[in-house]
């Protein structure tokens, strides 16, 4: 075996109330793709933050090519050839794609002036290698979908020609196509001798791309293994400490229609018509950008529809804004957790209680204990990992934040719940728990509209699948009819066909 | 104890001075050169000559509410006498509090007639406006376009404006094009003047009512090449104003005798404390204030004719 390119030895890191890393060791070989696995909050991002100079370890040492180094800040890590795609978005919406990618290493002419033609042509080339040809490098990042933004993030990391590339959940907001492109590039990089650390909660991806894998649990090192020696089950056992139960499906669908949408038209969708029954889980599938979230936003009254009708429990309603929707018993877990979901500087308890403040209050007044006990119960039920419900939301790991967002609506118990990419960045265990939760909700009679880009998720949960292409409904599949290829067929806008 | 401030009751007539006597001036806009060079310099000079302590309190901004608060707070520290700048009628209550606490209290510059102040020394802003109006009418031979500026909304200034307009009302051929707020800011005064010159190419005269009006007006007139063609009257006589009169940028300055009202104002306080002139056996119980009730220290004008006397 070749000498390690990178060696982390006995790294520890404590945050107030949390021991995020406990003497974790890790080694990375040249030209390997090394997966890092662990539940939400296991310490993966923390470890990578230390490796990229963003955090300093409390204990432990870092060796690069056998030499001890101190990565005092992001710049010094970059200078050592380490480049990272953070789990959190790190782009600036108001700047162009090109400028986001080359912030640290703009091509310059004499005097430090930016060589814009060169900048754009380099960006164009880089985007081409990422299979994106339709994008103008001058486009502002804020006008891109979150998938595209994720690709820009990756391009940004690649632009530095790193020796060590860290990808922290790069595919959370991606669909199969983009993921495939990403893997092709990673393989090419490996060929050229780059080492990659790859973090993902989609375990199948690990078998597709990684050479070795390391597992963390509760901040503790669980071992490093060649991927070839492992199975999904064995990885899960290492991550969770036990086996996951197989989940079985039974439809809970009832007769009565809770939500009925008729000829809804909006900015990016036309003539959407469907019905949603109590206890039903209806999936809205489609390629990214098909307009699924737009439909949800219209139903919630965030961007009210231009035309069409919404009926709730047999009555026609007009929904002008989210409070209206909530009054009619509709809840919404948005797709972009950080931007639209969390209140980062507020506590976990506050984040969960937000939708049900009035019902928790007595005569308009709220005591902490009135909030704390139901929240505490919910946190336990959802198994949200936190030292206390008074922890700031921003300090929770991504997956736990996602669970808290779901919890926010569970407190209110709406009759219709729209969940948009509900398991983005959630670990396998938690994912199973969320599925369980959604099914339990359905069993109670809640109607669920599921928007998801993960086809296995769609197939595992839904009673019925609607497929959206470019803003129009192109297909409806019952649970029995739905397969990945069938959904993809409609989602790519091909005409109806008989199987 | 409040009686400490009321020493003047027990003190014998005479000039025996306690070096711990402290006379406090409470003003506002404390850094205004006009205040620093005339009021404050005079007050300090007086204190040194009399062998007593002098203190000057006030904020750098023109902040009447803050002046009120300082007066109220300083009462508790038992000064020997208070010399208060009459910035605004609403300081009356604070003055009354000082008087009630037995502290000799004199108002200077502008009067606060609603208050129970012991004495007032100063000038009448209405007169300042009148003097400017008369000068303008004379210099323009009774006809032409006029604009004026100052701090719009301030009682002193508005009184001055009124004086100006009352005089000009007698001259039907004089057209007043407007009243402008320069906020005591040179840049603003200059900008307003420049705009006025362009909007009214036949503008004949400008009148300014705060310290910074004159220099700002003169700047824009100079830059427009109209020095001497537009008549300028304004207030105050800082070195800058004097220089402009000498150069012909300003035709007439109306000055207040600030040295007089500060000096004698302080002296009034001293005389009250020391019972310099006793009217009765016990003035206090007789309800007599043994200094003049109100003194008008008067105004004067500076033009190219007498400017030499003011220059160093």
């Amino acid at each position, binding site marked *: 075996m070749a000498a390690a390119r990178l060696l982390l030895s006995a790294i520890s890191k404590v945050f107030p109330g949390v021991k995020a890393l406990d003497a974790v060791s890790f080694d990375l070989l040249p030209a390997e793709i090394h997966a890092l696995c662990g539940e939400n909050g296991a310490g993966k991002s923390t470890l990578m933050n230390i490796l990229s100079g963003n955090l300093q370890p409390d204990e432990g040492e870092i060796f690069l090519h056998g030499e001890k180094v101190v990565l005092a800040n992001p710049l010094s890590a970059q200078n050592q050839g380490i480049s990272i795609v953070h789990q959190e978005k790190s782009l600036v919406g108001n700047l162009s794609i090109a400028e986001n990618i080359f912030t640290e290493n703009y091509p310059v002419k004499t005097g430090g002036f930016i060589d814009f033609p060169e900048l754009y042509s380099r960006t164009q080339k880089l985007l081409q290698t990422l299979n994106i040809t339709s994008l103008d490098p001058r486009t502002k990042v804020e006008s891109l979908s979150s998938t595209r933004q994720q690709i820009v993030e990756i391009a940004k990391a690649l632009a530095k020609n790193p020796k060590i590339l860290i990808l922290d959940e790069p595919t959370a907001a991606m669909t199969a196509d983009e993921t495939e492109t990403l893997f092709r590039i990673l393989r090419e990089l490996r060929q050229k001798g780059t080492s990659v650390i790859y973090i993902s909660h989609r375990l199948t991806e690990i078998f597709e791309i990684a050479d070795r894998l390391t597992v963390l649990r509760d901040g503790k090192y669980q071992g490093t293994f060649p991927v070839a020696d492992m199975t999904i089950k064995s990885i899960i056992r290492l991550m969770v400490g036990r086996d996951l139960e197989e989940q079985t499906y039974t439809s809970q669908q009832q007769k009565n229609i809770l939500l009925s949408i008729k000829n809804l038209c909006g900015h990016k969708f036309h003539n959407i018509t469907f019905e949603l029954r109590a206890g039903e889980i209806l999936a809205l599938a489609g390629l990214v950008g098909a307009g699924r979230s737009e439909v949800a936003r219209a139903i919630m009254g965030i961007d009210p529809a231009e035309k069409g009708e919404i009926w709730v429990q047999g009555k026609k309603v007009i929904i002008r804004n989210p409070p209206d929707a909530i009054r009619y018993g509709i809840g919404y877990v948005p797709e972009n957790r950080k931007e639209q979901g969390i209140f980062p500087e507020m506590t976990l308890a506050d984040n969960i209680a937000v939708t049900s403040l009035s019902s928790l209050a007595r005569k308009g007044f709220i005591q902490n204990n009135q909030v704390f006990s139901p929240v505490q119960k919910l946190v336990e039920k959802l198994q949200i990992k936190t030292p206390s419900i008074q922890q700031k939301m921003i300090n929770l790991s991504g997956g736990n934040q996602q669970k808290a967002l779901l919890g926010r609506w569970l407190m209110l118990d709406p009759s219709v719940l729209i969940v948009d990419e509900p398991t983005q960045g959630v670990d396998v265990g938690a994912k199973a728990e969320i599925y369980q939760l959604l099914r339990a909700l359905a069993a109670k009679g809640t109607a669920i509209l599921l928007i998801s880009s993960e086809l296995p998720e769609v197939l595992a949960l839904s009673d019925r699948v609607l497929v959206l292409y470019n803003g129009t409904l192109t297909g409806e599949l019952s649970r029995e009819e739905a397969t990945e290829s069938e959904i993809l067929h409609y989602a790519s806008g091909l005409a109806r066909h008989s199987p | 104890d409040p009686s400490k401030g009321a020493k003047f009751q027990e003190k014998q007539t005479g000039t025996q001075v306690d070096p711990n006597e402290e006379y406090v001036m409470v003003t506002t806009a404390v850094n205004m050169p006009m205040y620093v060079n005339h009021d404050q310099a005079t007050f300090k000079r007086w204190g040194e000559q009399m062998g007593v302590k002098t203190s000057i309190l006030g904020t750098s901004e023109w902040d009447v509410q803050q002046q009120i608060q300082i007066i109220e707070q300083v009462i508790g520290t038992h000064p020997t006498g208070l010399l208060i700048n009459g910035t605004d009628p609403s300081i009356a209550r604070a003055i009354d509090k000082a008087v009630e606490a037995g502290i000799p209290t004199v108002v200077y510059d502008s009067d606060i007639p609603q208050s129970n102040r012991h004495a007032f020394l100063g000038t009448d802003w209405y007169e300042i406006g009148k003097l400017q109006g008369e000068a303008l009418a004379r210099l323009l031979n009774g006809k032409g376009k006029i604009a004026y500026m100052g701090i719009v*909304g301030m009682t002193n200034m508005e009184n001055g404006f009124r004086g100006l307009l009352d005089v000009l009302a007698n001259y039907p051929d004089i057209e007043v094009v407007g009243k402008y707020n320069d906020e005591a800011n040179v840049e603003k005064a200059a900008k307003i003047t420049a705009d006025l010159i362009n909007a009214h190419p036949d503008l004949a005269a400008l009148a300014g009512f705060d310290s910074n009006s004159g220099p700002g007006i003169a700047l824009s007139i100079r830059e427009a090449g109209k020095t001497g063609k537009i008549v300028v009257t304004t207030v105050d006589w800082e070195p800058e104003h004097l220089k402009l009169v000498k150069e012909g940028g300003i035709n007439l300055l109306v000055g207040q005798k600030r040295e007089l009202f500060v000096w004698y104002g302080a002296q009034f306080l001293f005389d009250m404390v020391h019972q310099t002139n006793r009217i009765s056996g016990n003035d206090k119980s007789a309800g007599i204030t043994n200094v003049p009730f109100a003194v008008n220290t008067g105004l004067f004008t500076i033009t190219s004719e007498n400017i030499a006397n003011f220059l160093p």
Partner: protein
Amino acid sequence: MNTPGIAKLLQERVFTLSLTLVILVGVCSLIWPDTFLTFSNLSTLLLNISTDSVVVIGMMILLISGTFDLSVGSVYALSGGLAAYLAYNYGMFTPVAILVGLGVAVLIGFINGLLITKVGINPLIQTLATLGIVRGIFDLMGKVATLPEGFDALGTSRLMGIQTPFWVMISLVIIFSILVSRHVFFRRYYYIGGNEKAARLSGIPVNRLKVWGFMLSAFLAGVAGILFVSRMGAVPDTLGKGLELKIITAAILGGASLLGGQGKITGAFLGVIFIHLISNILVFARVSGQWTDIIFGIILVLAISLDIFLKKNAEIRLTESLRNIYQQPKP
């Protein structure tokens, strides 16, 4: 050991600011033993802060929700001036005149809120324009130098030796600090300031609440203006000029952030006390006029640095003590 408890406390602006205040008062009462810590000085000080403290409540709520209002000084002036004007010139019954003054204030706040939330004008530009417009109207209005008796009483009557404005202030501060920390309506402002988009999606009527916030802020500015006018028995020309910046500074000293989501009413109140206490000390120290701003600025920077130092230290100690707890072998 109780280190984590104290350390956690030290992270609260309200606590560190109180500490700084207590230290200041302690030192001063040693320097001026006869005059500083007297009923007279303290009650004057409290009376003097009463108007600012009322205004700062509304500003704090706006800052919590991530916005601010530059027009409070003008509204303060117009409300007070108008009520006095109506009572004096038209012999209007005092309570009615006051209601009209307050009504106008609320209307201005409503217009501010509407233009900001519905038309989408930047709050700085909008409230700055309002500042100018309202000040202009105030200046147009005749000033009043004598008030009718009833009006006067509002600001000058005493309870337990202290004038009414103090009692009004203390009641409002207590009521609003309870409301803001405990009432559902006001809790929502923290969410809006914390993440406006998320707040909207969670069903909080963001725009409506913001409009209410501007109305409340204007209302409280109006209350303060009326209190001040009735206390002085006259309407100063420059009433309320420059108030906005002083109030925002006090609120930020008290823990608010221009980014929103942070701050407490008690913090804002302490911020006002802090600013006034320093100028009170400057009066006692007879810092001569020209030095006032310099010394004030230096004390401000030093006090804030101390505050930050206390906090940082607390953080480090907190982390360390937690680390020790973790490193103890678990049973």
